């Protein structure tokens, strides 16, 4: 059972799956870093984005990898509007209210999907879904390798935005010191909404990378988001490198525990890591001490 022939592909597949988790977690950690709340609507947004990618393919024959360039801006706008016109005004600046409002939005989105599309599980057929690349010692699925590369591209793009643009500087300023940022003339409500939009766009990209090999139903996002919560906590809330490293780690843990413990108990492994990290070191591996 422990032979490297099984073990190495399992680890590699875990890393590839971890990359997609990283994208979902990036959005979550970005929003936490600036707004200091956990976006409980993240999973519902992921389900919605998966549906968007699904219908873009089914109705317009749009390849998911091309649809990214349509769906990501769409979800940026959706996220921006949600924060600017719903979450912000509704929560009156209270963190607890913000949590509840995102939970309320999650319930609404998820059940609108259920209402519109029923609980059926759907998949799409793209020609490259089962293609593999031969690395000599193992085979890896093409869509997963593409996903892995895309995650690093997105992380790089985010880093560039954060470091070199005025918007990025404004976001960092608000994350560090909201009132100070307001005093020097930064529109905090706008920055919040931009951050929420970027987080939602990350989710949309993740959805387009997932859909070729995954399925979609109205609650599919929840499974990912609970894992993403774990990753974000493990990596340190608000830390971008923490999210990427945490995601790869969790991907490998999931793959290995699935191999040794079976499908359903493998999930428990993740939650136990999650609870233990929260209790022992809630600031995570890379986060500043809270």
């Amino acid at each position, binding site marked *: 059972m422990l032979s490297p022939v099984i073990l190495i592909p399992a680890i590699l597949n875990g890393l590839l799956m971890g990359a997609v988790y990283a994208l979902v977690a990036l959005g979550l950690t970005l929003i*936490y870093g600036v707004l*200091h*709340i*956990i976006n*409980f609507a993240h999973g519902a947004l992921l389900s919605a984005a998966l549906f968007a990618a699904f219908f873009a393919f089914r109705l317009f024959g749009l390849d998911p990898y091309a649809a990214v360039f349509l769906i990501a801006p769409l979800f940026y706008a959706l996220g921006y509007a949600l924060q600017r016109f*719903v979450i912000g*005004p*509704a*929560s*009156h600046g*209270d*963190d*607890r*209210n913000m*949590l*509840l*409002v995102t*939970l*309320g*939005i*999650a*319930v*609404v989105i*998820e*059940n*609108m*999907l*259920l*209402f519109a599309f*029923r*609980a059926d599980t759907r998949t799409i057929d793209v020609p490259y879904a089962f293609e593999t690349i031969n690395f000599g010692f193992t085979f890896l699925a093409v869509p997963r390798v593409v996903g892995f590369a895309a995650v690093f591209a997105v992380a790089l793009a985010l880093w560039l935005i954060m470091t070199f643009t005025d918007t990025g500087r404004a976001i960092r300023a608000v994350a560090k010191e909201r009132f100070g940022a307001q005093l020097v003339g930064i529109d905090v409500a706008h920055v919040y909404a931009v951050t929420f939009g970027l987080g939602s766009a990350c989710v949309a990209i993740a959805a387009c990378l997932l859909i070729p090999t995954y399925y979609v139903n*109205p609650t599919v996002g929840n499974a990912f988001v*609970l894992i993403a*919560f774990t990753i974000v*906590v493990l990596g340190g*809330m608000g830390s971008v490198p923490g999210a990427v490293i945490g995601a790869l780690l969790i991907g490998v843990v999931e793959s290995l525990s699935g191999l040794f413990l079976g499908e*359903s*108990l493998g*999930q*428990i492994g993740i*939650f*136990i890591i*999650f*609870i233990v990290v*929260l*209790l*022992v070191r*809630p600031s995570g591996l890379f986060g500043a001490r809270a």
Partner: protein
Amino acid sequence: MKGFIPIIVVIAVLAAVPLIVQSNATLNFLVVALMIALAGQGWNILGGYAGQYSFGHAAFFGTGAYVTAILQMHYGVNAWFGFGAGILCGAALGGVIGALTFRSGLRGSYFALVTLAFAEVLRIIASVAPITGAGVGTLIKLDLGARAFQFQSRAAFYWVILALLGLSLVIARLIEQSRFGAWLIAVRENEDAAKTLGVDASSVKTAAMVISGSMTAAAGCFYAQYFLFVDSGIAYGTWISIEALLTPIIGGVGTVFGPLLGALAVRLLGEGAKLVTGDVPGLDLILYGGVLVLVIWFTPRGLIGGCGQIRQWLMRRNAPGGPSVIEAGHG
């Protein structure tokens, strides 16, 4: 004693309902609403008074339901003892989760997350462990009779849940009037300041979670006896976590009657939606989510707070210096 008169009046009025209403559908509606109100009252003790928003109260509901069912079916324990044991287990679970999370200083988002994770872990365990019947669930054998806590008439069940709810209202009022309640509110409003004044915040919050857990577990125990069936999706599902927090927030968070009012409102809304559109999946929850957002937006203190807001608004209109009294008389 003064604070208890409204509770006595409300319970007395509700207790008279089965004498007038005979319809099984109406009674069933009320039984479920009161059960949700009890679960919500549990959430309210911790969330409303102590300000710790749990997103995973299903952990308590499910534990109560499973303990009641499993003790009866696998160990032949009497249903009433099973019921009591379920409540005790809910309290114990509250103590364990509370001690773990509050000692490590988790609050806000982190607390919401960790409670959610506990509920999920329990749900996964319940969906694979043989003793819970895994994916199939646990059926309680039909054995009508007061001794087995199973009643032929809906009215009897109704009075049982009403009694439990009445007890929870009394407990909430007692807490409100006690020093312990003042500590809870101090921790909610400003935890650091409360600590400075000598309040042992984490013990106080843990105690609130014990009481909270036992109330929500009692609702779960009742669920098991009423429906005689439990599975992991029902017992530990997100629906109950959401309804437990929805009812006090909609009714009026941190008030004695908030959860009851909220549960009746939420359930009426859900039933109304079903009447209009038929039994379409998802529609009632779309409404719940929407109402949750709107209530936080416009009446952050729920329906009870909303009444106060309207009264204040009327008083301001009537007050000298505001819009003239004559105008208010027309409006």
